[in-house]
């Protein structure tokens, strides 16, 4: 075993997490839904969104106490609040989500190493993961940067 995979490289400091956990969940969920709609328009067809239809997927950033929830309704992603019961939950540390988003880590590797958790509707989680895997990340990163800069 390689000890490098056993734990994330860094964690969100507890005082920062305490503040983050108190913030409303809607803005990050709305941003995520907007980004996913952008991704879906470019990379998904009706067939590949079908496993997500009517389902709420929650991303839980364990060390930051932050959750992002999105629902897929008639092929469009909408933000969900903390009160929504998720159909599927994907949980990991912020460091690991960043590593996944930048394609430095493989989700199955993190899952085998118990650093990524997956509960609820496995098919919805897999469809979401595979949708994100189809994305050519460079233009999206540029778009996200512009969106954040405008706010």
């Amino acid at each position, binding site marked *: 075993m390689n000890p490098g995979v056993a734990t994330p490289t860094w964690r969100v400091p507890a005082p920062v997490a305490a503040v983050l956990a108190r913030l409303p969940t809607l803005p990050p969920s709305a941003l995520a839904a907007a980004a996913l709609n952008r991704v879906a328009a470019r990379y998904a067809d009706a067939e590949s969104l079908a496993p997500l239809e009517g389902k709420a997927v929650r991303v839980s950033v364990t060390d930051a106490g932050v959750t992002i929830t999105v629902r897929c309704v008639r092929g469009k992603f909408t933000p969900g609040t903390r009160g929504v019961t998720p159909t599927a939950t994907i949980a990991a540390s912020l460091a690991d989500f960043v590593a996944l988003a930048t394609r430095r880590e493989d989700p199955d590797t993190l899952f085998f190493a118990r650093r990524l958790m997956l509960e609820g509707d496995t098919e919805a989680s897999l*469809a979401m993961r595979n949708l994100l895997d189809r994305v050519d990340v460079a233009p999206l990163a540029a778009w996200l940067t512009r969106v954040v800069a405008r706010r």
Partner: protein
Amino acid sequence: MDAVVADSHPAARGSVACRAPDLVCPAGSLPALKAAVDHGATCVYTGFRDATNARNFAGLNFSLADLEIGVRYARDRGVRVLIALNTYPQAQNYAAWCAAVDRAAAVGAHAIIVADAGLMAYAAKRHPNLALHLSVQGSATTYEAINFYADRFGIKRAVLPRVLTLGQVASVVAHARTEIEVFAFGSLCVMVEGRCQLSSYVTGQGPNLNGVCSPASAVRWTETAAGREVRLAGVLVDRFAPGENAGYPTLCKGRYEVEGATGYAIEEPVSLNTLSLLPKLCAMGVRAVKIEGRQRSVAYVAEVTAVWRAAIDACICDPEHFEVDAAWDARLARLAEGRQVTLGVYHRSWR
């Protein structure tokens, strides 16, 4: 191991100059295909987004538009695209599989990887320029079986099931009238490819007809105080203690209670890694080494392809002094299912 190999085939003893085998890498998405090409694959194998291939997972695989882009990307860089059509059609859906063969030909794939003899006949007749590779799902372990497919359908390459020792592989290579491809790295299973009915028993779906061992719709992971539990169609398949490495939720790798003891009754969740066998595989004339994992991410494909490209280049450059770089092994081991690797059956001395 050496005794077995030396005993079976003179070329397998070692140090003759050898030709680089094709590095055949998996891609479940267009970015993965590009990563494989960019990191040194010779061939990339893919599948359509349906049950015509053995990785029929939600959201995975290629639309026709993506595949057209992928084939162009690969071809521009001298890399061949192979399309897996390696499940078995049934009477009621035969036309859909034939249509997939037509799509593969139309999109400009170099070859299709097939298991069903009817599809081979169809492809050979309709698309004589489309090369045929015999899938591991065809379960041909002898050169006699492979030569039958070669004579009857003109298959160019056969992918060997992962049940042969190195000596047996050498014998098949020496007598087969096709190129031989072997699995080099990736997840293992019970390896009765094309014939496994285990998951069908619990979920009603299986790899041979539906292209999926553990359909995601039947899988449930639950984090409990006792550990991570996984159920397939409601059947508890495994419980991973806190901190213990997990694996894929397939029935063959589950832990079961047998005669009072709980353990891996069928198969352990480990991955094949044959880096150390490269000089022998090259010397015996194996034409291609295959990386498993079309269900894996871009990060996996990029990393595994890069390591194997470096290893093959080093081996071809100086086969006599080839040594597995510890860093290669470490990079592969961390990606491996169960995070443990094995030489599989290749190293066994019994036949």
